[in-house]
């Protein structure tokens, strides 16, 4: 489903200074896998995820999503691919504050090339039901707790029925209990839909939720073993 | 909402104060009757009548700042709109100002009152629009 072929990503910080986020990355993630990527801060986990989603261009190497080289297509084509195949859960609060919960969940519909589905509202409510937040459809994000907001983000990420769900440290701002609830939700979604999940975290204990663990350090993949 | 309320209070001040400085009496012009007595021109009375608009308008503004319920705000907005209309009609129809184009009451007082009245109606309309729908759930 996702393949990294000798990928490196170097960010220019100043005119003379550069940071190598990842280098020599070779990794294949098959459809239906739940991969948990762990590593310390600065190990390149987030960059790996951004590369997988085509949100940043590799300095060298190739990134393939569902067999397509992400950087052999136009920005528009890449955006359409992302809209149709990728759901993203962010580390930071990413709901639009001026939209209600329901409106946030249906937001991805704007980016569908064929327009919004006719039952967008209904579909969104079902997703909110699935994440246990159906009664909160009409409220604004500021009226939700951090854990609730993250559930809404997950519902939003699933709206376009993606093939891949990418989650960047989705539980880093949450307490242990809520973290556990969110991870259970991920596991449940994976079990029900068999979509490919790539979850990045610095908490190694969360590895048990996935089907495969990948460890990163200093921009390189150290191990990639089944859990 | 507080800004709308403040605007209404400011407009009330304008409506009440401007006529005092721009009617013909303030410029030293009065009507002299046959018997030699002097009386103010009608612009003077329009100015005084505007006080009866300005005072309730100031109260509406103050209440608007304090009210939290949409129903109350809608009511205040409607009252405000009517007061704005009254502010316009006093110089235009009900009492009037002097006819000559270059007299201060015609040149300054009347346009100020009309403009203030229009802005009051506009602000009231905005409050009405912002207060539509059911009460917010706390």
């Amino acid at each position, binding site marked *: 489903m996702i393949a990294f072929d000798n990928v490196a990503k170097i960010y220019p910080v100043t005119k003379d200074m550069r940071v190598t986020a990842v280098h020599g990355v070779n990794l294949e993630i098959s459809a239906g896998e739940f991969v948990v990527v762990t590593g310390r801060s600065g190990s390149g986990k987030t960059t790996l995820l951004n590369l997988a989603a085509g*949100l940043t261009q590799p300095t060298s190497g190739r990134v393939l999503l569902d067999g397509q080289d992400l950087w052999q297509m136009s920005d528009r084509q890449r955006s359409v691919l992302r809209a149709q195949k990728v759901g993203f859960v962010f580390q930071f609060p990413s709901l639009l504050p*001026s939209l209600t919960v329901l409106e946030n969940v249906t937001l991805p519909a704007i980016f569908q090339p064929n327009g919004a589905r006719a039952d967008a509202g209904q579909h969104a409510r079902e997703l909110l039901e699935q994440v246990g937040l159906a009664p909160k459809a009409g409220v604004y994000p500021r009226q939700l707790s951090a854990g609730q907001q993250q559930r809404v983000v997950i519902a939003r990420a699933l709206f376009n029925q993606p093939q891949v769900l990418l989650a960047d440290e989705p539980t880093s701002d949450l307490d242990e209990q809520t973290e556990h609830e969110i991870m259970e939700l991920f596991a449940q979604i994976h079990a029900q839909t068999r979509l490919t999940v790539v979850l990045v975290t610095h908490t190694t204990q969360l590895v048990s939720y996935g089907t495969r663990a990948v460890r990163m350090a200093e921009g390189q993949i150290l191990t990639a073993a089944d859990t | 909402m507080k800004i709308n309320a403040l605007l209404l209070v400011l407009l009330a001040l304008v409506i009440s104060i401007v006529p005092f400085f721009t009617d013909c009496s303030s410029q030293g012009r009065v009507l002299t009757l046959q018997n030699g007595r002097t009386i103010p021109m009608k612009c003077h009375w329009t100015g005084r009548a505007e006080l009866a608009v300005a005072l309730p308008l100031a109260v509406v503004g103050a209440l608007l700042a304090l009210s939290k319920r949409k129903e109350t705000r809608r009511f205040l907005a409607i009252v405000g709109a009517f007061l704005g209309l009254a502010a316009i009609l006093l110089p235009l129809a009900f009492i009037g100002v002097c006819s000559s184009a270059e007299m201060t009451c015609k040149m300054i007082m009347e346009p100020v009152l009309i403009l203030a009245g229009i802005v009051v109606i506009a602000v009231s309309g905005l409050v009405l629009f912002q207060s539509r729908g059911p009460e917010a759930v706390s």
Partner: protein
Amino acid sequence: MQLVQLARRNITGNAFRSWVVALCACLVAGLALGTTLILRGADSSLRLANQRLGADIVVVPEGAVEKVEGALLMGHTTRVWMASQNLDKVVGVPGVQAASPQIYLSTLLNASCCSVPNMFLVAYDPATDFTLEPWLKNTIGQGLKLGEVVGGAFVFTPEGEQNIQIYGYLVTLKANLEPTGTGIDQSMFMTLETARDIARVSVTMAVAPLEIPDDGISAVMVQLDPGADPQATAVEIMHRVPGVTPIVSSNLFQAYRKQLGSLRAGIGATLGLTLGLSVLLIGLVFSMAANERRRELGVLRAMGASRAFVFRTLLVEAGMLALAGAFTGITLTILVVYLFRTLIVVTLGLPFLMPALSTLAAEVLAGLGVALVVITLAALFPAVRISRLDPAVAMRE
């Protein structure tokens, strides 16, 4: 949710930023329209005043140009005299097709015998007049009789009265001229016969008598033969008629045209400065806002928004704010200019006429257009910059 809906939500979600941009648009559009209205209004007035006079050349006593222009344009009453024989001399100048005398008078400043104080009166000779008489025949079917007058657009019979009292004499208002935005609007026109009748009656009936010299006229309106050169004829008049100044109509109201020119320059500079500052301010506000919203826009990109979408969203937001602000500014400007038009005239010392509705509509659209262009231009650079940003970089803290 559509792009426009999303833009609207983003606008209401950040009140401060939205208000600043809308206010700038309001200012830009309002100022652009307001200055256009005033400048073009003054221009139209000058043109219409010229047309209303109907003369190719106006001959006035030497040294009286300013006073006569002030009377005709601004309604500042004046009394100037020259010998009535000058009329015959002017008629004899080659190139002159017709010449008609006028006498300039005024009502008293504060007297009970005059319904309207300090009004400019123009007495004309119906036998030789070539402007007012034809217009009257067209409008009311006949010329003015004894005791009848024509008023400018703002002359009216006082409430409850049938006539207007001038120096104790009652005149009947037969018709009103179209508005010109000049002093003509507050002037009254009558035949010489009526004027002399008023003068006769005023001796006993008025607080102070109306004095008209037997042998005096104030101006001569000249119509030229077709093809005659106005400048050459004016020079000839000056040679043949000592003690007068002939003013060619294209040079009429020159002092006011110069004033208008200075005003235009001043306003142009102010407008240019305002536009420039607005572009800078809005550019700054949008830049700051775009920076603040980097993460949010990065999230949209992650959801499948293309660069073009992000760019369009920012421009649509700018456009909506521009239109809302401009519309408010334009409405307020029209209201203010219309309501305070007399104050504008008195303050600027220039005539003013509100444009016809069709012209106003065109100017309104132009004002909206200016605001839209200015705001969109200001938002362009930040929009381009942010839309091109690497989404991963945008989402980093």
